[in-house]
């Protein structure tokens, strides 16, 4: 028996951004970049681990908006257009850099990588990356968990329990469609928990959730094992707390890995570096320079004179960081085991998109770490929360405390000067949705279409992403517009249903636009 357990948890989420009404839409690039730089590298990593018979465990939340986008034919089509353009750029780069050996090799490196991404997307998985992740879940290697239906910030809906219930039940339904089984765990959006949310999880048969360290530590009664074991809430749903030490090790500025001089520099991109006329076909159609994903430099140090990226050095460094991370976990586990006299569990949750998109070598780091854990040590074992609970079904009963993983640990990021204006609208819309669901559930076909679309608009307006963007101070216009559009569309449907006069052509047009959750069950709002 190992002395302890480590669970790596990656939260993969992007807000629902899909604009069929435009030929090109800048914000859709979030998805395309994440596919190339994060999701496909993680899939390739798991393929490799399975091929080499490495026994591994990984947990990922794949949120309903992300799954919806990954399964959407229009966005799939546009991703292929996007990656094909990059392949073309990399071909030009191979020629352009013929006298610059270091860059020439990198151009080839990107060329092969983009080709591989397209082949993985189109050929290996028939455009269905959700199916790719599902495959690893069915092999017992990856545990996929769900999230709120649209990443709504649940604690600020506490006065509208139906809205919380709908966020969870609709996510559960969507998960079933994507993965053919029920989710065992949930990533509460923004890890935001308030006492009482577990009751809705119990109804959905969701068995555990993740919270930030202080949410568990400040639980009542005091959790005996701190954050190194889960607790049961009184509803029987388990809560797991984030380990501070392991996340700090990856992300702190002094000791964090991604800032290493040999790693790829995120900011130097040919989209900015190259001559305008040459790069113009590959940047934003309006001619605005933007990142392309081809980045030739390493971090180098505190200098503006960056040196060319050396893939070989970067891989050496990722392997050595993985070794260091493993060593520290071994020491941590040994030490905790000595105190607790039972195996501690270390929960290391991260945003998935950090790995690959931001920290380019991140997926390689996880790959090396996973392999080393399997072959180079016996102190701890990788696990998933479900597997851990199966092995350790006896835990303490505690009421965890309200908390989130945002700055300062509570609601402040999503409730402050820039974004508090949205809540009166969201609350009224939630209350009106319940009114509609109760009073018009026996309406005719058109009314039911109206009810479904009203639910979609409310759900989309509730994404915590919009409040977050408003708070961070940039791209605010898009977030404001999304919030307003969804609320206003909701209000118009509400008025039309109440006045028994539904404008069908307009309804059809927004059904086509905001097409998330085709079978949304509005009865959850009753």
């Amino acid at each position: 028996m190992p002395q302890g357990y480590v669970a790596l948890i990656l939260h993969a989420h992007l807000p629902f951004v899909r604009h069929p009404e435009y030929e090109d839409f800048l914000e859709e690039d979030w998805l395309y970049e994440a596919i190339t730089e994060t999701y496909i590298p993680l899939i390739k990593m798991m393929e490799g681990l399975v091929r080499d018979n490495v026994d591994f465990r990984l947990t990922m939340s794949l949120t309903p908006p992300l799954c919806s986008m990954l399964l959407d034919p229009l966005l799939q089509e546009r991703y292929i257009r996007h990656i094909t353009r990059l392949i073309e750029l990399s071909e030009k780069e191979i020629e352009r850099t013929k006298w610059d050996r270091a860059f020439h090799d990198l151009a080839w490196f990107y060329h092969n990588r983009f080709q591989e991404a397209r082949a993985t997307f189109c050929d290996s998985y028939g455009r269905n990356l959700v199916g790719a992740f599902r495959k690893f879940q069915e092999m017992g290697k990856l545990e996929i968990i769900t999230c709120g239906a649209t990443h709504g910030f649940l604690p600020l809906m506490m006065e509208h329990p139906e809205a919380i219930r709908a966020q969870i039940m609709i996510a559960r339904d969507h998960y079933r469609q994507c993965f053919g089984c029920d989710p065992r765990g949930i990533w509460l959006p923004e890890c935001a928990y308030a006492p009482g949310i577990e009751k809705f999880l119990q109804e959905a048969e969701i068995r555990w959730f993740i919270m930030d360290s202080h949410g568990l530590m400040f639980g009542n009664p005091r959790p005996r094992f701190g954050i190194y074991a889960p607790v049961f809430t009184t509803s029987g749903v388990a809560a797991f707390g984030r380990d501070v030490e392991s996340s700090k090790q990856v992300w702190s500025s002094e000791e964090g890995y991604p800032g290493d001089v040999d790693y790829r520099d995120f900011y130097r991109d040919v989209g900015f570096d190259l001559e305008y006329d040459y790069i113009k076909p590959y940047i934003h159609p309006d001619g605005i320079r933007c990142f392309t994903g081809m980045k030739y430099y390493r971090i180098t140090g505190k200098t503006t004179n960056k040196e060319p990226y050396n893939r070989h050095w970067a891989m050496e460094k990722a392997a050595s960081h993985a070794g260091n991370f493993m060593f520290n976990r071994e020491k941590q586990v040994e030490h905790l085991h000595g105190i607790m006299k039972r195996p501690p569990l270390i929960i290391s949750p991260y945003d998935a998109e950090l790995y690959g998109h931001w920290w380019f070598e991140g997926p390689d780091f996880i790959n090396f770490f996973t392999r080393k854990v399997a072959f180079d040590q016996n102190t701890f074992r990788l696990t998933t929360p479900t597997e851990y609970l199966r092995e350790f079904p006896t835990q303490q009963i505690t009421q965890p405390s309200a908390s989130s993983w945002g700055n300062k640990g509570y609601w402040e990021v999503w409730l402050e000067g820039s974004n508090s204006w949205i809540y009166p609208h969201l609350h009224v819309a939630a209350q009106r949705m319940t009114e509609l669901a109760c009073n018009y559930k026996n309406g005719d076909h058109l009314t039911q279409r109206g009810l479904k679309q009203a639910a979609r608009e409310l759900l989309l307006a509730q994404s915590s992403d919009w409040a977050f963007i408003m708070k961070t101070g940039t791209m605010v216009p898009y977030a404001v517009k999304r919030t307003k559009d969804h609320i206003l569309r909701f209000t118009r449907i509400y008025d039309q249903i109440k006045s028994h006069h539904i404008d069908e052509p307009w309804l059809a047009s927004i059904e086509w636009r905001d097409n998330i959750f085709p079978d949304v069950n509005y009865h959850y709002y009753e």
Partner: protein
Amino acid sequence: MNKADLLAKTKTELLKTAHRLGLRGVSTLKKEELVDRIHEAQQRSKGAGQAKGLTAIAQRVADAVKRRAVRKRDVTETDEAVAATTARSQPTRTSRRSKPAPVGAEDAVTPADELSAHKFDVTPAPPHPQQVFQEEHLGELPDAYGTGRLFLTARDPHWLYAYWDLSWQQMADYRGQASDGRLLLRVFEKNHGDPIQTLTLGHDSRNWYIPVNKAATSYSAELGFWRHDGQFHVINRSSETATPPDAVSSDTTAKFVTIPIDISFRELFEIIRGHIHDGEALADALHRLQLAGFRFPFKLGLDLGPWTTDQTTELERILGGDLFRRIQMGSFEISEWLRRRMQEELSSGMFSAFSPSGSSWSGAPQNGFWFAVNAELIIYGATEPDAKVTIDGKPVKLRSDGTFSFHYSFPDGQYKLPVVAISAAGDDKREAQLSFERQSRTKGDVGKVKQPVHLKSPAAA
């Protein structure tokens, strides 16, 4: 391509083919070995050809769906569109109820109809709108809905947040009824006793952040005014909200319970039906019954061994420091920052809007001034549009008017570029030999390539 064809190529050509196929570590191979590797790889990719064929079908379906969706008016349904409709409507109705077929790599070898049957089953293409409203004339959000509701929530252990949904008219009316013309927000600990704070609302205020002393305490608020008869008129009362605790609990009692994850909550309720008290939570009931010796159809593990205060002290020593010095910029902030802001930052030119301090991840100029210079070489020319042009042996694509241009990065050094044009008939050939030399000398700090100097990384605090 068979082996003989491959052998006829130069090693450089073969290396290029090998790179295209994604073969690694081939540059040191002998030509024959290289041919073998390429041949193998080509055979493999032929095997994948089948998958491509199916993908093409799926793609056609998706294309049709897309065309269909984009078209404003469906005048004629093409065969493809009909095919797409059939492929789509089937899964949405049936396959969702039956157990969905496993998806994954096997897709590549399942029949095409099955493939498309579950490819789109979660988000089928939306129904085709007859009209797409580019401008919906949605109007503006109302200032208030006039529900009169008073919302109160604890934002963190020391702040409450309140808003009230009153229209300007309602606010003015209430002010008119007040003896002193003022609306007040009164905050209570729990929901009774004297208010711990009374706030006079400004004329344009719609919400309020209220500092409070106590964490882990329940608060409520009421919105109202003093009437002329000296009574306080309550417009609305909020529900109670509790500030979260900001320290570990002093209650160290530990109740343990066994809850097997593979037995559903529904089944657990069933097992203890008749023994659970009214209003008792599931885990509490299980705990009570497990201690009382109720027979459960699973193994209990309540004996966790002794636990000492030394152990508690030691664990808290480990956790304490970190817990109270929360990472100011966690992984969350970094990633959100990136994925949601980068594009916009760059495209809007608002670079300086953010600059988390002390980045160690990207270099910033020491003082305000900086300079970078580099050179690229552009070869351009024109010939008959149907002629063949090569630069340094590489074919160049001509534009429709016969012009062409080509970019090269141009580091220090000496270079020769032969440029050749051959007529379409192959009977005329012209050649140019271009030679270049670049030498750079710099004084002071001169960078090589332009970079967005304003960009800084979101380094942790």
